[in-house]
């Protein structure tokens, strides 16, 4: 297990190095570091002096090293538009995105597991067929279209739910602005969460159903029944625990997709999170912020994937043993 842990973490570090290299290359080739500091109207002689002073004429690798060292200290450069450290801007926006992702994941987990298991156990029941039909339609509707339709029906048409923004927020310790503690904030969460989960839910229902169906045909399920175990235990402990492994792996990968889709959802709902911020940064050609977002989200993905792999290792006895050797 320990060797497995080390291997996985080394890999994560390596991926982060590659990401920082990409980010740095973008910054070098697209962005203009002087603009961040000086603005546009500076004479050529002054610029050259400044270039030399900032070490911008040093070799590429040396500059990358400096970029890395600064990044490790939390300095990802300054946002051209906000005139503030990019990381600070991102951290200010992160709670909005993370809360959206969290409530969406909750929705997906709570719905996909029972529906997926049900559809696997009773594949011919009309309700199961209905769920499967809805889920194939679900994967075919782009997330931004779902979002627009939700707004049109529930905000413009019925006027039940708000269509943009986060509503009333509460500041928690450490400056985390949360919408979870006011009814207005929760109301604002509903439509974006449904829209965002509309793309994940069908996928997970189909995955859980397929895996569960496969597991239910195995000998060890029949054997569990032959041992006289209660049906619930056969289904959940013997059946679902075995489907959990592929579901966890896919879940880790899909968390990345979820963050990608927050860009779309936040744009539609004008949700003040990292995704909307990223699109604004692209529109304003705010290279530092774009790169900072790349590095931040990259770090987030790598962390999540590493944790998922480690959890997978904990659940799957085979890996645990392989690691021990």
């Amino acid at each position: 297990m320990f060797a497995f842990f080390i291997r996985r973490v080394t890999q994560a570090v390596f991926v982060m190095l590659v990401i920082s290299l990409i980010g740095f290359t973008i910054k070098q080739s697209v962005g203009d570091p002087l603009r961040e500091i000086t603005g546009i109207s500076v004479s050529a002689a002054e610029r050259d002096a400044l270039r030399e002073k900032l070490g911008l004429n040093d070799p590429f690798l040396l500059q990358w090293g400096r970029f890395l060292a600064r990044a490790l200290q939390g300095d990802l450069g300054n946002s051209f538009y906000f005139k503030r450290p990019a990381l600070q801007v991102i951290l200010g926006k992160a709670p909005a995105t993370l809360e959206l992702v969290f409530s969406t994941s909750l929705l997906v987990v709570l719905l996909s597991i029972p529906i997926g298991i049900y559809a696997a156990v009773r594949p011919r029941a009309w309700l199961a067929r209905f769920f499967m039909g809805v889920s194939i339609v679900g994967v075919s509707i782009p997330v931004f279209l779902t979002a627009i339709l939700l707004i049109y029906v529930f905000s413009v048409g019925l006027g039940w739910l708000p269509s943009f923004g986060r509503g009333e927020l509460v500041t928690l310790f450490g400056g985390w602005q949360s919408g979870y503690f006011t009814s207005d904030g929760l109301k604002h969460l509903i439509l974006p969460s449904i829209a965002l989960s509309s793309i994940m839910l069908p996928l997970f229902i189909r995955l859980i159903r397929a895996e569960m169906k496969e597991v239910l045909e195995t000998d060890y399920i029949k054997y569990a029944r032959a041992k006289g175990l209660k049906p619930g235990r056969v289904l959940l402990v013997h059946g679902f625990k075995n489907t959990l492994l592929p579901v966890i792996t896919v879940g880790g990968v899909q968390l990345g997709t979820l963050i990608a889709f927050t860009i779309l959802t936040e744009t539609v709902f004008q949700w003040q999170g990292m995704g909307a911020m990223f699109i604004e940064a692209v529109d304003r050609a705010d290279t530092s912020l774009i790169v900072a977002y790349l590095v931040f989200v990259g770090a987030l993905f790598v962390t999540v994937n590493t944790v998922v792999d480690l959890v997978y290792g904990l659940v799957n006895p085979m890996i645990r043993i392989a690691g021990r050797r």
Partner: protein
Amino acid sequence: MDRQPLLSVRDLEIRFRMRHGDLTAVNRVSFDLARGDRLGIVGESGAGKSVTGFGILNLVSKPGYIAGGRLLFEGRELTALPEEDLRQIRGNRISMIFQDPMMTLNPVLTIGTQMVETILAHRAISRAEATAIALDRIRKVAIPSPQKRLQQYPHEFSGGMRQRIVIAIALLNSPALIIADEPTTALDVTIQADILELLLGLCQSEKMGLILITHDLAVVSQVAERIAVMYAGTIVEIGPTAQVAGNPQHPYTRGLLGALPQRVPRGGRLNQIPGMMPTLTRVPEGCPFSNRCTLCEEVCRRRVPPLEPKAAGCLAACHLLD
């Protein structure tokens, strides 16, 4: 003392629901098993012997179902029992041993979990007491350091060790009957004899009944007191082991014995039965064996032969025997 048999199977019929009508996999099978007795069911694959075994516990995989017949076990009619009552018999009064120990144990649960849950499913005792029982059974199947073994996962065991575990699980609730479906087929030849010996010894010492399902006549004659030979879903011959193996009546049983390598003199040819067993869609009318039988006569193609007493204590289904 107790004259009533432990298990009495009467006219058991199991069918598979197919798109174009049903297929009969087990056709009016009847036999009795006395308390502590050991019966071997022999036949080629597809003869319906495994389906019969699973049918006793109503565990036939879909689309199979029990279409008729009676299953009287310890005075209770299993076919009429509600699912919950049947569950309490499974793994408790009747245990099963499956063919491939690689596939029967759940890969993500420890051996301990898989043993303890079997006890707790049937008895209201504490986890510690259940663990004590599990340890006792592991000792009975002669696996060293049982304490440590309980913490381990199936893939940490060899094939033979796993089958020992499966046998230990079968013993957990001291059942009256064990149904073993090809328990040695998936194992190395060198281990097969050990496992059989273990199973036989335990059945004798614990006074458990055994139904041993196998395609191997040699294996059955080592273990069972009585043998039932199945062909295309029916029992064609049933009787004491010495009779069936020593003086077979039915032409199919004779053919099976002739095909055993140890019966053939060195350098001689194996006497294989010509042709193949028909698939369930193509069982011939009349005697199911008629299209392969060298003795086949007109009557065999028209009428199904009944299972009748033919020789000492032996029943066979053939028109040509008297």
